[in-house]
């Protein structure tokens, strides 16, 4: 199966003609987004994410390299007819209401206006804006605008969804809805390429991640590849005797007492031994979880933690 999006040795330099300045936004960047996967695009501010997305959408032309989207050149209407796009800070016409904006986008997508009414209502229902469909968008809150942006991106049942900060401005419930939507779209076979600052969300919904920094690709891989096991396990018990605690500490483990029990961290090779001893000491083992490195840790290690987010 051909990739949904493909960057091959892409370079983009911004030039300020009169000042003679050059800024390399992307340098020899190559990656692929496979069809049917949810792929995260991460990097600190100024890493080249928006430039890459703009090139993918045909808004910018690369200086070197090759880009293909759904098998076509970026900006090709055959590709764009299968893409749903949510830009960062979705901009809108203040004088329109949600229904009219979606009708406008339906017309641009080549959908017959006569049949678009039902689709528009369904989309508004999906993003919980049905009640506000006649309210001018200029009066919407930021979260409502973002939800409307997501609704317009879903017009035309796109094969590839490119979402730039889809949960930006949303409350926790709204963020969960977007996550659920992404999961349901993946289940339906859609490909999703998204950038987000909220790395915990990326971990929950993405199959793969691509990390860029200062215009260069620093890491790409599946979540399993990126989040390697740490070689330690976390054991949650209801109680822990002082003798047992000193024994755990002797294994170079760690003990953390909390409201819901006592959390022990031990080397994975001592897992069985630790559990048997805990049972023997009449401790109730509530859970045992292998510890994986978090995406945030990986991200901060790769980009040095000076970027101020993804």
């Amino acid at each position: 199966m051909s990739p949904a999006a493909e960057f091959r040795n892409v370079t983009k330099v911004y030039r300020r003609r009169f000042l003679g300045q050059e800024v390399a936004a992307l340098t020899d960047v190559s990656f692929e987004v496979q069809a049917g996967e949810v792929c995260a695009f991460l990097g600190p501010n100024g890493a080249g994410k928006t430039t890459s997305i703009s090139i993918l959408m045909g808004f910018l032309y690369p200086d070197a390299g090759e880009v293909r989207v759904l098998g076509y050149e970026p900006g090709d209407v055959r590709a764009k007819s299968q893409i749903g796009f949510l830009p960062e800070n979705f901009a809108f016409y203040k004088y329109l209401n949600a229904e009219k904006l979606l009708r406008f986008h339906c017309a641009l997508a080549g959908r017959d206006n006569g049949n678009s009414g039902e689709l528009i209502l369904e989309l508004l229902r999906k993003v919980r804006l049905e009640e506000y469909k006649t309210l001018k968008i200029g009066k919407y809150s930021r979260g409502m605008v973002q939800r409307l942006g997501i609704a317009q991106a879903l017009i035309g049942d796109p094969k590839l969804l490119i979402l730039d900060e889809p949960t930006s401005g949303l409350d926790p419930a709204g963020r969960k809805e977007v996550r659920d939507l992404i999961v349901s779209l993946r289940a339906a076979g859609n490909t999703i390429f998204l950038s987000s600052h909220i790395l915990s969300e990326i971990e929950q919904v993405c199959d793969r991640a691509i990390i860029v920094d200062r215009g260069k690709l620093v890491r790409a891989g599946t979540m399993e590849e990126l989040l390697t096991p740490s070689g330690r396990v976390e054991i949650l018990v209801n109680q822990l005797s002082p003798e047992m605690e000193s024994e755990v500490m002797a294994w170079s483990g760690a003990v953390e007492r909390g409201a819901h029990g006592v959390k022990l961290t031990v080397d994975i090779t001592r897992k069985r031994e630790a559990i048997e001893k805990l049972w023997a000491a009449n401790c109730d083992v509530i859970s045992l979880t292998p510890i994986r490195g978090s995406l945030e840790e990986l991200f901060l290690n790769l980009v040095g933690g000076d970027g101020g987010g993804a």
Partner: protein
Amino acid sequence: MKIWAIATNTFAGFLRDRLLIVVFIILLGIVLLLMSPMLAYKAVTTAANAAQMQALVLSEVAAIMSFLSGCGSFFAALAAATAVAAEMKSGTIQAVMARPVKRWQFLAGKYLSVMMLMLCYVVLMLGMSYLLAWMGGERIQSAPWLLILYPMARYAIYAALGILFVTFMHTAVAFGMVFLVAVLTTLLAPTAPLGGHLAPWVHTALYSVLPSTGLLSEDRFLSITSANLHPVSWLDHVATLAYGFDYALVCLLLAMWSFHYRTLRRE
């Protein structure tokens, strides 16, 4: 359908655009101010000075109409430039161009919306012409379609120039360029004095490149001061109008070519 959707949406935006509304209100205010001496002339007209007053009234009507007609050119350029630039500034262009819309379709939609706006302007101007001529005690004898098509051809040129310049420069600079073109066009007209101060080849080159909007003036066939019609054949009308729309088309095609290569970033 896509071009029409962009055009109608932009037209709806024009009707709510504060800058255009302010410009329109200022225009209207100036016209009302210009009308006051005309009404004063009418009020003091007696049997003794009737002919003299009539001439004054008609010259006032002619001045108002050429003012309105000239302002229309800048109004067209301003509307065209802001129609494209506003989308770039607000970032709405990204959501639009993410749809299966070609770049030339986007510009064609914008251009169509400007022409719709200018048609409304021309119809208003035509109504004003008839009203003022009636107030001046004359009747405009020209066919209305000529009084619509001639200014529309001029506005088509200025709108296309506005769109062309804004595809590669800032709105204010683009508008300034249109203004410069209009001034140069006036100064380089065959009857204008500047031609004699320039090297012949510079004059010829500029005259060939700049639009001959004087050719597209209603003055060619209508002199409102005497409400007379000059004899102009229909073939001459067709050739002149074809020149105007052809010039506009060339500018628009150049704008589409330029827009094809420009980056669509939020500004």
